[in-house]
Structures are given as structure tokens and as C-alpha cells.
């Protein structure tokens, strides 16, 4: 899983500046869609010329100049925007919360989830349409259409460019966090190729960190950031030398980043002091239980089951019950876990992890034939090559 360091550096520099520039241009010319197009053009130009000429000393000024020149060019007929743009000079005085406004607009609940994700990655993180397509395994034209349609809706339906006030804020933060969480999930579990999914997790972390900086009083923001960091801190153990997925029980824990784990746990602890538990803090706490166990045998399963109970109380979901059943196996035994699992059969029959988990429990209970057929069900239901490899191996040896 190697990435080109020069390219990573480039993507990081773009990410650092693209959102700020987009936010500043929306403010200055007063049109979200036009401003976004100019920034995207500048980003594409940067990705073309920086690998050849090197990253300029002031990448922000470079991007601004290209966007402005491009704007004066393409906005020839849109005299309104053009005149405003002509008056804008570098450096643009920054406004503290500008990128936050951008994020809330991109993640507005009146937009389709897929459009929220695409728009956020493009506008806030400075990804190109092509990069977003590769990360989600969808054609570039599909991403472009989603973005065009979303921008048209923002303009025509009167979606405001502002930070939601008062009681609206909390719910809208949840909407933004869902978008970031989707990036994490897609990047972490995705069927896309490793390099692009790793970048997606990086972008999710970056975005969560930005949100945490801008909304330091929202414990769920800190919770999601801690969750992402805990996942990333353990990524060194997730794959073996051949790129095969390694199950948690078999991972070499010395390859985890223990300093990063300690930092994430400290972040989570600070958030928990506000006594406003939420699904992200709880998920992070569960991952922290695993991350802090020196060996698989040291895992605090009692605590994990308790955390799952709290999570189910706040956000009931059959998939969460499935995960809880996995932990239950170590506190109450495989028979109890299997009973809990079989309760979910009607709702999770199409989910490969349901059958894979069932197979494990059946094996523990000395029912190998049923276990094999459950594994075969799981295999037919997953398209993730890493998971397929593990299931194949299990079917071969047991």
C-alpha cells in the first residue's frame, strides 16, 4: 500500500488552501456555484503544473491568481460577478468561520447524501471530480452530475450560505458528521483500491480535525475525530506483508501507533467530561477498548458489551446488535451470542458479516458443517477481495 509521497504532499497543500479560497471567493463574489467552479479549475491547473514546476512558495496566492484570471475570463457575460472579482486583490482578508459556512452549505439536509459527500470533498477538501470518482468507484461523469445538480439546487431552492443558528445547529452538525463518517467507512472498508481509500480516510480525519477546531464545544465532533484517529493508529497491523487483511485477534499489536492511540484516548476523555454521550463517542470508546488492550486476551469485553448497550440505546441498529453479539461471545459464551444473532436473521440475512460471525460461533459450538455453509453464504455476499480471501482460507482449513 504505497502512495507517491510527492503526490501526497501536493494533495495536502491543495487541501489546506482550496476550501479557504472557495470560502473567500463565495464571500467576495456572492455566488457559491461560480466561486466553486473557479476553485476547481485552479485545483486542476495546480495538479497539472506543480508536479513539473514544483509547489510555489505561496500556493494560496498561486491558486487565487489562477482562479481570478480564470474568473475574469469565463465570467465575461456575468458582469455582476466579473466586476466584483476584478476588484478583489490578494491577500484576501480571512474571516474566521468561513470554511464552516462552506461545510454547512455542502452538507445541507436538502441535498442527497451522495451529493453532500461529493460536494464536501470537492469544495472543502479540494479534491477533483476524477479523484472523488476513484475513491467511490463511480464514474467521473456521475460525480460531476451530482455536483452540478447539487449546486443548482443550492441556488434555486434558496439553501443559505451560513452557519445554522441556535437550536438548528446541533442537528446540522449531526448531518455534517454523517458525511465525514461515510468517508471513513468508505475509506476503511471500501472495495476501491487501497491508495484512494487511504486518502479518503486521511481526508475524513482532516475534515474532522477542522470541524473540531471550529466547533470545539461539540463532544460528538471530538468523538468522531477520536474514532478516526484510533482506526488510523491501528492501520499498521491491518494488512500483512502480502496486503492480506489480518483479523483483529491475529494482529501484531506492536505495529500499532501507541502514541497516537494515547492521544486519541485523551481527546475522547476530554469530550466525555461534557457528559453528552453520543454514537461517535461510544464507537470511539469501543475501539479504544480494543486499542488499549496489550493482547487480544486482555480485551475488556465486559466494558465493550456495556458500551454497545449504551450505543444501542441511543442508536438502535441490527448491525450494532451484531457487533454486540461478537463481544457477548466472550462474556456470556458462544451459545448466548448465537441466540442473539439468530434473533437478527430476518433483518441481516443479506449481510455477509452476519453469516461470517455465525460461522465462527457455530465452529466454537462444534457444529462445523453448519459453520461451513454459513461461511459459504458470507462468501457469496461480499465483494471485498480482502474479506473474500479470509473466508476462502477459513473454508479451506476448517
Amino acid at each position, binding site marked *: 500500500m504505497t502512495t507517491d509521497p510527492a503526490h501526497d504532499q501536493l494533495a495536502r497543500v491543495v487541501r489546506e488552501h482550496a476550501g479557504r479560497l472557495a470560502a473567500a471567493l463565495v464571500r467576495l463574489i456572492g455566488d457559491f456555484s461560480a466561486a466553486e467552479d473557479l476553485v476547481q479549475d485552479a485545483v486542476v491547473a495546480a495538479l497539472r503544473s506543480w508536479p513539473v514546476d514544483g509547489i510555489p512558495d505561496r500556493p494560496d496566492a498561486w491558486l487565487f491568481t489562477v482562479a481570478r484570471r480564470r474568473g475574469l475570463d469565463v465570467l465575461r457575460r456575468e458582469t455582476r460577478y466579473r466586476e466584483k472579482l476584478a476588484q478583489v486583490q490578494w491577500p484576501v482578508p480571512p474571516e474566521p468561520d468561513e470554511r464552516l459556512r462552506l461545510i454547512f452549505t455542502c452538507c445541507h439536509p436538502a441535498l442527497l447524501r451522495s451529493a453532500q459527500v461529493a460536494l464536501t470533498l470537492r469544495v472543502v477538501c479540494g479534491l477533483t471530480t476524477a479523484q472523488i470518482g476513484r475513491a467511490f468507484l463511480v464514474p467521473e461523469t456521475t460525480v460531476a452530475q451530482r455536483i452540478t445538480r447539487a449546486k443548482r439546487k443550492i441556488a434555486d431552492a*434558496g*439553501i443559505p450560505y451560513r452557519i445554522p443558528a441556535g437550536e438548528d445547529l446541533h442537528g446540522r452538525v449531526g448531518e455534517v458528521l454523517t458525511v465525514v463518517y461515510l468517508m471513513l467507512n468508505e475509506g476503511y472498508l471500501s472495495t476501491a483500491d487501497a491508495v484512494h481509500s487511504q486518502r479518503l480516510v486521511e481526508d475524513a480525519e482532516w475534515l474532522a480535525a477542522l470541524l473540531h477546531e471550529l466547533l470545539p464545544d461539540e463532544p460528538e465532533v471530538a468523538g468522531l475525530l477520536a474514532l478516526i484517529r484510533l482506526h488510523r493508529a491501528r492501520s499498521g497491523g491491518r494488512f500483512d506483508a502480502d496486503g492480506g487483511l489480518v483479523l483483529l485477534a491475529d494482529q501484531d499489536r506492536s505495529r500499532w501507533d501507541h502514541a497516537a492511540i494515547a492521544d486519541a484516548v485523551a481527546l475522547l476523555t476530554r469530550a466525555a467530561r461534557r457528559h453528552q454521550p453520543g454514537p461517535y463517542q461510544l464507537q470511539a470508546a469501543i475501539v479504544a477498548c480494543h486499542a488499549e488492550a496489550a493482547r487480544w486476551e486482555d480485551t475488556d469485553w465486559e466494558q465493550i458489551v456495556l458500551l454497545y448497550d449504551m450505543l444501542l440505546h441511543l442508536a438502535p441498529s441490527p448491525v450494532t446488535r451484531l457487533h454486540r453479539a461478537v463481544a457477548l461471545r466472550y462474556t456470556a459464551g458462544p451459545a448466548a451470542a448465537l441466540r442473539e444473532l439468530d434473533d437478527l436473521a430476518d433483518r441481516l440475512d443479506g449481510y455477509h458479516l452476519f453469516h461470517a460471525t455465525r460461522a465462527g460461533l457455530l465452529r466454537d459450538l462444534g457444529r462445523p458443517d453448519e459453520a461451513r455453509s454459513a461461511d459459504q453464504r458470507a462468501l457469496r455476499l461480499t465483494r471485498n477481495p480482502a474479506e473474500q480471501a479470509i473466508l476462502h482460507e477459513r473454508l479451506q482449513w476448517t
Partner: protein
Amino acid sequence: MKYVLLFVDTEQFSADLEAMTPDDRARAFARVDEWMAEHRHLIRGGSKLQDAHTATTVRLDAPEPIVTDGPFVEGKEVVSGYLEVDVADLDEALRMVRTWPGCPVVEIRPLES
């Protein structure tokens, strides 16, 4: 910015309303009146519509206009009323609709300016 709120009834909602005691129904209507009063300054017009069985649909995409009895889509959800509102943006329209105490579905549609 001007929007139309399209209020949509479902079969379930109508049945629930039917099943209420007269007192409960009166209270439900009173909640709607309260909501109307609270948002009076934003409402520019609108009305409750008569039942879907009173609807007549004319299709003009055939060689001759075709007149049929009933709403343009036959379904479990029917438009039962509309309001035109004048608000700052979609967020203000959303805030309004979130507290709507009547039928279970509301579509928010901006007017062409």
C-alpha cells in the same frame, strides 16, 4: 424568497383522524390553527383542498385532451392543501415545516421568481 408548501395526506393519516374522538380531533385542529397564527406573518396565501375524490385531471399529451376522474397520480399520498410563504431562505421554510402539527408529509417548493 417565496415557497409553496404542499401538504400531503396519507391513507393512514386520514384513518387516524377518522378514529379520533371528537375532542381529540378538535384539539388536533386547534394545534393547526395555533401553528397558522404563529406563522401568519410569513403566509401569503393558500388553502385546504377538498378531498381527492373531487379532483379531475386533464391530460394534454394525447392527440385529444383526455379528462379523467381523480388526481393526476393515483396513490396513497394526495395533496391536501397548499400555502404560499415568504421567508428568508430554505432554512426558514424548513424551520416552519418542522413544527407543522397536521398531515405527515410536506413538500417545499420555491416559486420561480
